[in-house]
């Protein structure tokens, strides 16, 4: 069992966390102008890197979404960040 750190609740069991997607993942702006290709890319395509990854995760106990940096082969976690502080930096 691996321990992940929620920026709000601290170290918790991996089973409490849910993978959301890539970080950053900006939503395309301006409904009318966005092509089907751009929507499809935003909705479905993933970076899915082998190695260092920046991802969005949800801690299901507090329902906060945050950023976690980790290695997808070794599973080593190098940082968890609240999104608000991230957005300000």
């Amino acid at each position: 069992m691996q321990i992940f750190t929620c920026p709000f609740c601290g170290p918790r069991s991996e089973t409490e966390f849910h993978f959301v997607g890539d970080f950053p993942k900006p939503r395309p702006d301006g409904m009318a102008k966005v092509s089907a290709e751009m929507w499809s890319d935003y909705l479905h395509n993933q970076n899915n890197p082998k190695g260092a990854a920046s991802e969005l995760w949800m801690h299901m106990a507090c329902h906060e979404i945050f950023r976690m940096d980790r290695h997808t082969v070794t599973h080593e976690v190098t940082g968890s960040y609240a999104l608000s502080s991230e957005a300000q930096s």
Partner: protein
Amino acid sequence: MMKKYSALTLFKEGLNNQKGWVPAWRTARPKSRYDVVVIGGGGHGLATAYYLAKNHGITNVALIEKGWIGGGNTGRNTSIVRSNYFYPESAQLYDLALRLYEGLSKDLNYNIMLSQRGMLHLAHSPAEMEIAARTVNAMQINGIDAELCDVEKVRSLVPDYNFSPNARYPVYGGVLQPRGGNARHDAVAWGYARAADNLGVDIIQNCEVQGFIIENGVCHGVKTSLGDIRADRTGMAVAGHSSVLGAMAGFRLPINSYALQACVSEPVKPSLDCVILSPATGTYVSQSDKGEMIIGGGLDRISSYGQRGNLPMLETVIAGLMEMFPSYRQLKLMRQWAGIVDVVPDSSPIIGESPLPGLFLNCGWGTGGFKAIPAGGTLLAHLLATGKHHDISRPFDLDRFTRGRMIDEGGASGIAH
């Protein structure tokens, strides 16, 4: 020329102290150019190479594998074959595979040990029985064999199952596909390799693709650890590593890689004569010809390229097994392992030309592509030979994500193996 395998050659070799066997395929060095390069020596890549030669007469083909053939998911799966899907597109695809499997030992002159002992998918409530009836109807309309079983039929198929009145997940019945079952996974890889080699395909192991030769926006082959290899057309069937190769080619895919685990028990006397899956526990189990219980379940929860597997899912799967077969508590686990599978949002494969012209995809099989190997190979070979879709592969093109025409088998047929 390939030495034909038969009961007679086995007998003769017995008298000959087994001294007359020759390697089943050559150790090939890569040439600098081929008509077609196929990346990935799993079942799908090997079958593609074989059908290019057999169905299309294209024999100037290289099959490139970074490790050893069958060392990926093809040699790590729980070897279940079936075609009990819901949508007509999937039924056509997976039943093509099953029909080809039914003739494969003969076609390849290699015993793939296909055992059609039946695949039973349980129902645990009256509501699940209604869905089971709907599934059976859909399968029968698609021309696939399917039987709706009541609890007595289930009892006759799996007498050791937990039918106790206070079972946490009582059995109401299930869906049986009698033609489902198992095949020997290594034999599928080795049989295709031997037959492809015999038709002239170069099987190149320990050769990693590290990039693509791209000229004027078109793929003209691959850059490998053994040098550049040019080709008119390139196919890739690299499962969990599809995004890694996609990044080399300059595109992203709707894929996340996850570890999927399995484990086997010590061998015991024959006691389980079908493949059984409980959607409530998420666990499925069958008994190998050696007697081991082969146990599997759902994906790990964390996307990963670590070919190990995490403990929480293993615990869930084993707890499910204990609930289903309390007598299996006495069994010792012998081995546990994982493979990295390519998970797509609608749990259906991607077959078609990639965003890089000249490079063709066979990926996204996720947790359930072993059963599809003969079809995946047939369809990718058709694309590589003709540049056009086969009718059966058309719905599975990458464009379905832009067109919004998903084939959502994740929802329609539950966890897929």
